[in-house]
């Protein structure tokens, strides 16, 4: 299945350096936190887009190859790391599996593409931007452990849930970026 991207860029048939040149340009029109899908056929684009993303600070989420077309998913760097976390109820990465086993639910608020390239087995995916419209999928009596990559989006999501009357909400820190446990890629 194809993954959700905010902006798509066609670099099929282009040789190095064009996929990077075009990606760099396209990123100007992508907002922070949004996902750019780059379609390329040049195999060299894998190592180069990864290394380029790292050097700029964008998040290279992953790639899928199908019928000779490589789809790269890159999330534009937000200021994920700097912002202060405000939501007070937190638990750690290490605690979350045991807590969830006792009847809670892990809510992953990263984008669908990020979730697709690796998430905690059994976690529920609702990207941050869709949360407000999908509150009815959540149970107010259940403990909800909100997780994202660095704890920033989950902090905002937890605040949002609290506003809407959810009380048993916890932000999971430091988040999937530091996750050492097993990862599932099932959607």
């Amino acid at each position: 299945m194809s993954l959700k991207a905010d902006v798509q860029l066609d670099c099929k048939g282009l040789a190095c350096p064009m996929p990077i040149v075009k990606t760099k340009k396209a990123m100007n029109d992508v907002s922070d936190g949004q996902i750019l899908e780059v379609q390329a056929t040049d195999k060299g684009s894998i190592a180069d887009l990864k290394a380029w993303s790292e050097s700029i600070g964008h998040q290279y989420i992953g790639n899928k190859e199908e019928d000779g077309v490589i789809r790269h998913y890159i999330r534009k760097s937000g200021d994920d790391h700097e912002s202060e976390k405000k939501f007070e109820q937190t638990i750690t990465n290490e605690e979350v599996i045991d807590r969830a086993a006792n009847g809670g639910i892990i809510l992953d608020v990263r984008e669908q593409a990020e979730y697709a390239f690796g998430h905690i087995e059994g976690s529920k995916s609702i990207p941050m931007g869709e949360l407000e419209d999908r509150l009815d999928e959540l149970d107010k009596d259940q403990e909800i452990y909100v997780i994202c990559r660095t704890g920033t989006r989950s902090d905002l999501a937890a605040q949002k849930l609290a506003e809407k009357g959810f009380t048993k909400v916890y932000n999971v820190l430091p988040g999937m970026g530091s996750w050492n446990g097993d990862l599932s890629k099932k959607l």
Partner: protein
Amino acid sequence: MTVIKMTAAEVARKVIENKELFILDVRNKDAFEDWKIEGHSFDYLNIPYFDLLDGVDEILPKLPTDKDVLVVCAKEGSSLMVAEMVSEAGRDVFYLEGGMKSWSAYLEPIKVGNLTGGGELYQFVRLGKGCLSYMVISEGEAAIIDAVRFTEVFTNFAKEKNVEIKHVFDTHLHADHISGGRHIAEATGATYYLPPKDAEEVVFDYTPLEDGLTVKVGASQIEVGALYSPGHTIGSTSFIVDSKYLLTGDILFIDSIGRPDLAGLAEDWVGDLRETLYRRYRELAEDLIVLPAHFMIIEELNEDGTVAKRLGDLFAENHGLNIESEEEFRHTVTDNLPPQPNAYEQIRQVNMGKITPDNDEQTEMEIGPNRCAVR
């Protein structure tokens, strides 16, 4: 200022003639650290091209003005882009035609020496990958040993020399590069030989290369004799050419020895490797000139660009031939081995005829250094 194309052949001459060159390698850092163009007198700057998209002003002071500057990338496109930027900033600059891809493919034929009755022995040095192939020429006939996959280089060279290729050998089933031996034999009607113990899974016909087999090349009967020398693989076989040269395949190199693990059987073959290097080779004349199938570092090249050294000198100088304790030898060749060559399992499959990748896929498999040795 101008952007000038430099070919892999021109770079090869600079390596062999010990010339200076400044290489601006614009591939990403991992690729550069793994594998680059090696020269005795080359200097390097590695900045990925994607860090230069906004301009080259920052690196200009680092580029020398008293020697040639060559921009290198994987396939050419990025080096051309960067070279144009450097040129616009007012500097003369070269780019490598075809990038590292063409460097990996380039073969420089160098004459090793004369053989009895007017024959000649050539070494084909693949500088970018460290592979060495050989052609024995004598009175209208030729034998080829360990040919790499660029078969036309060999068939064209034979045409140029006006000789007919009669025998094609592989010293063993290669794991680091794709052999051209079988295809040369098919194209020329030559006999293709492979050690049967390495060939148990191959899916094509071949002539068994057994210990003691000799073939004669040309009217003056240059003798190419096989010597079973297992250890890198179970079938590995050496050749003695004209009682003068010892072609060691991947068993013995100039500054290192073969590794026994590329077919997955390091523990089983370490005894064979020891036996070959410490007993069989010891029985040979010390004046034989060793010609290996690989070199690993540029220091192994002689002044004329060949890779060759007297066997007696290797007994004295090569660390791998001077490990007295068997236990320590075992440890050296089975523990702490360098990383295995890129795609070595797939390359073995290709050399067994089990898979037939297209040219681009073959190029991709052979990217990087050969890594067949233990130092």
